[in-house]
């Protein structure tokens, strides 16, 4: 997806929010489409279509320039599908890890699961069809499916290939906003050892982890 589409989508969402149109309950986006949910007792398709035609697309409110350097442990315990992926792609596991962790990915939107990021920018060499049968995928799993990569915020059935695990707690329904990452942010995966992962996981569990250390404002 192009950057201009992303900017236009975010600008459109910002306009809808700022114009606070009577009857509109909420709006949200995917790559190239926006959903607008409205109360049919307060407005209707006709009124909204007229509005959409006339809308002045604002400059997006969301222009976060945050870069999150997200720790990922790619070691065997957390990467059940890495050997298989290495066979299928004809690439060493180190090469896969290198290609996966050198890229900066853009957060396009959140969907699939609460807090699940749709990231753009996966190296084409890592594109691979999803598994035939979805499997139970643990919380924090960093995985590849099709032309996409992402982190599972919670345990869930999923068809993506798991190549690592991220210890961060980035989704919490009791926080405002509930997700650390927002559309427009960038994410880079930072390979950490099993020992480093364990230390971070403990700090996160005890609520003493400094999230400042993983954010760079570009």
């Amino acid at each position, binding site marked *: *997806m192009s950057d201009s589409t992303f900017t236009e989508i975010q600008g459109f969402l910002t306009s809808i929010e700022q114009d606070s149109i009577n009857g509109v*309950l*909420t*709006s*949200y*986006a*995917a*790559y*190239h*489409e*926006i*959903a607008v*949910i409205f109360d*049919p007792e307060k407005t209707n*398709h*006709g009124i909204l*279509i007229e509005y959409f035609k006339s809308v002045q697309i604002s400059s997006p409110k969301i222009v976060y320039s945050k870069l999150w350097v997200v720790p990922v442990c790619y070691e065997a315990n957390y990467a059940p599908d890495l050997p298989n992926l290495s066979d299928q792609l004809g690439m060493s596991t180190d090469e896969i890890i290198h290609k996966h962790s050198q890229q900066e990915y853009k957060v396009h*939107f*959140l*969907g*699939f*699961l*609460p*807090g*699940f990021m*749709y990231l753009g920018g996966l190296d084409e060499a890592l594109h691979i069809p999803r598994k035939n049968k979805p499997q139970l995928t643990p919380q924090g799993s960093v995985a590849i499916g099709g032309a996409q990569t992402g982190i599972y*915020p*919670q345990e869930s059935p999923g068809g993506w290939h798991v190549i690592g695990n991220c210890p961060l707690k980035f*989704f919490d*329904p*009791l926080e405002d*906003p*509930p*997700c650390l990452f927002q*559309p427009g942010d960038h994410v880079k995966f930072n390979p950490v050892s099993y020992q480093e992962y364990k230390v971070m996981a403990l700090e996160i569990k005890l609520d003493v982890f400094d999230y400042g250390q993983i954010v760079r404002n570009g």
Partner: protein
Amino acid sequence: MGKCHIIHPGFFSSLQDLGRMGYQKFGIPQSGAMDQRSAILANLLVHNHTYAPVLEATQIGPKIYFQEQAMIAITGADMTPSIDGTRISMNQRHVIKPGQTLSYGRLKSGYRCYIGIHGLSCDTVLGSCSQYPGITTKSRLQKGDELSFETWSFPHSGTSKVRFKHEAVNSLTVFPGSELDLFEQLEIDDLLSSELLIRENDRMGYQIEPPKALRTIPSILTVPVVPGTIQLTPSGRLMALMRDAQVTGGYPRIFQLSEASINQLAQMRTGEQVRLKLQKLHL
């Protein structure tokens, strides 16, 4: 505050209101009562707001012990409810006395039943009581759960009753989905003239099987979806998304159920047959 205890949750029961609005942008589903018409009715019968929480039971109802006096009403599927073994009628308010137990028997009609309790109060997360994995502490009602409500201190329930029969329907109204035009007209005509079979279903969605699997399935980018969106999955089956559906999806959106049809579908179960009636939107 009065209290009641879940002795047995039934097959699958959860607390639901009209759902969570405004958090879809974080990937959080709308949730809410599957059959919102019945949920609203249950609340109105017991003098609650329409958006108050209710208990939603699926297929087999729960067994609930009331420690204090409560006013309740049961709507939706008829699961032959009784208080201390005495059958009670649907769609009517009842006073349940301290020490009495609400229980259920055989499922006679529909699939999901709603229990409205006067003054039922539950914790809200992101503006809603609706239970959902990863959002609320518990994702469903469990044995031993305790619920609080305003004690009903008047002796009589009155005779308030609504004539509201859960009518079995065999046709659901759908509007054209965003990708409908990408399908072959002949296949769509075929689909609309066939009896479709309801397969596996839960709060996320209903799998619906046409007699002949559709052959041509366009592939699309991930797009927004809403409750009531009907997707065509790679197996050639339809997937009607329901209240707990995810907010985006990667399968083509062939139809969109009307709001009333979502409520009707929520009362149908595996093995039943259904037809789709396409209604054009006049914009």
